[in-house]
């Protein structure tokens, strides 16, 4: 602190008589909260990157199982901002399979784990980019079981929420790509379709919700019946 010490001498009026003593400075009362807020803001620069944008923290829509939920998600591509729109319905969970079978992954599960399919119905315009979605089952202990994320060890990565043969367009990552354009020879995605990817989960777990996420921190919650 470089403030000069408060001047508490008794000022003398021009005619030589003493006046009322001057009160010491109180400017610091205002400065302290400003300094605290500035300090927290300056040391909190990691919060957006290392917490907010690196996990599921922002629920953008929610609904019950077997109910259509309309989703509008703000995102961006090489051309700027856009809104991803789709509707989704959780039709239910499939039975327990001791083998995990996906396109590039087939093996037997151990430790009481089983593969359960997640049956989802989708509706969306064929031009919407719905590749690269991740599905997370959350159980009543808060444990998370996921498929489709780029860092997931097993299961499909890019075509979890879309039909295998007609996945639709991806988001342009360079400006010369055109939004909504399909690779040559690929048919457009239907307006309604169903998927049922498998997630490895404990056989005796009780699930409370399914989360659908394309980009952190946004996700959609579909609650399972208790």
């Amino acid at each position, binding site marked *: 602190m470089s403030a000069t*010490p408060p001047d508490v001498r008794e000022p003398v009026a021009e005619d030589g008589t003493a006046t009322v003593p001057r009160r010491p400075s109180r400017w610091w009362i205002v400065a302290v909260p400003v300094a605290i807020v500035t300090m927290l803001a300056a040391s909190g620069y990691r919060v957006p990157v290392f917490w907010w944008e690196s996990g599921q923290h922002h629920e953008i829509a929610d609904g019950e199982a077997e109910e259509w939920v309309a989703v509008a998600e703000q995102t961006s591509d090489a051309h700027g901002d856009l809104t991803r729109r789709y509707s989704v319905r959780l039709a239910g969970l499939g039975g327990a399979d001791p083998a995990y079978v996906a396109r590039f*992954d087939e093996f037997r599960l151990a*430790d009481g784990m089983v593969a359960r399919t997640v049956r989802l119905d989708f509706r969306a315009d064929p031009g919407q980019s719905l590749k690269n979605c991740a599905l997370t089952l959350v159980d009543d202990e808060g*444990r998370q*079981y*996921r498929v489709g994320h780029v860092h997931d*060890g097993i299961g499909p990565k890019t075509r979890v929420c879309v039909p295998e043969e007609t996945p639709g367009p991806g988001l342009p990552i360079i400006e010369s790509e055109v939004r909504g354009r399909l690779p040559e020879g690929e048919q457009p995605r239907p307006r309604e379709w169903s998927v049922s990817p498998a997630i490895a989960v404990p056989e005796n777990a009780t699930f409370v919700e399914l989360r659908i996420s394309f980009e952190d921190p946004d996700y959609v919650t579909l609650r399972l019946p208790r």
Partner: protein
Amino acid sequence: MRRTVASAALVIAAMGLGRLINDHVPLGDSADRPFVSTGEVGRPVVLDYAEVTVTAVHVTPTVMGNPASASGGRWLVVDTELLARTRPTLMSGFFLVDAQDHRWIASTRGSECASSASLSTGVRHYASFCFDVPRRALGGARLVATRGAWTSHESEFRRDAVADVDLGIAGSEVDDLWAQQEPLDVRESGPVPPGEARR
């Protein structure tokens, strides 16, 4: 005047106290130090996000594959079994620390040698990490496993849980291990146990 002197004394005393705290309280340690759990070969080390088990340790001049990889010194290959406990976890920090506290990063020259592990919750993941090391790094070597990538000053895993597993190589064994010539077949990392083929 006395007030001025008192204020000056107070400021100097506060600065002195600050200096004492800086010099004698281990603030850096409490802000940066990871939480280390130690272990040994064959026993799981339980971290809050994963279980780390070193299942076997091999020393060889050649890691098989296409193409086979010769070591500069010897390959120290550490077989691990990893299990994420509550959520999908990416572990990117696997490195070797020798008895002189030198560190060695995992090499990816061997075709199936891993450098990181993407763990699906509850699904056991098998991965082998290969370190090309000189003879002096063998005795007393430890595997350190964590989520953050290896960096020179640990900033990637400060305050994180870290497994530190003694690989059980005694100084007297080093000569025999160094003399081994048998090439090693490193298995592909993933959810299939070594010894079982993918279906």
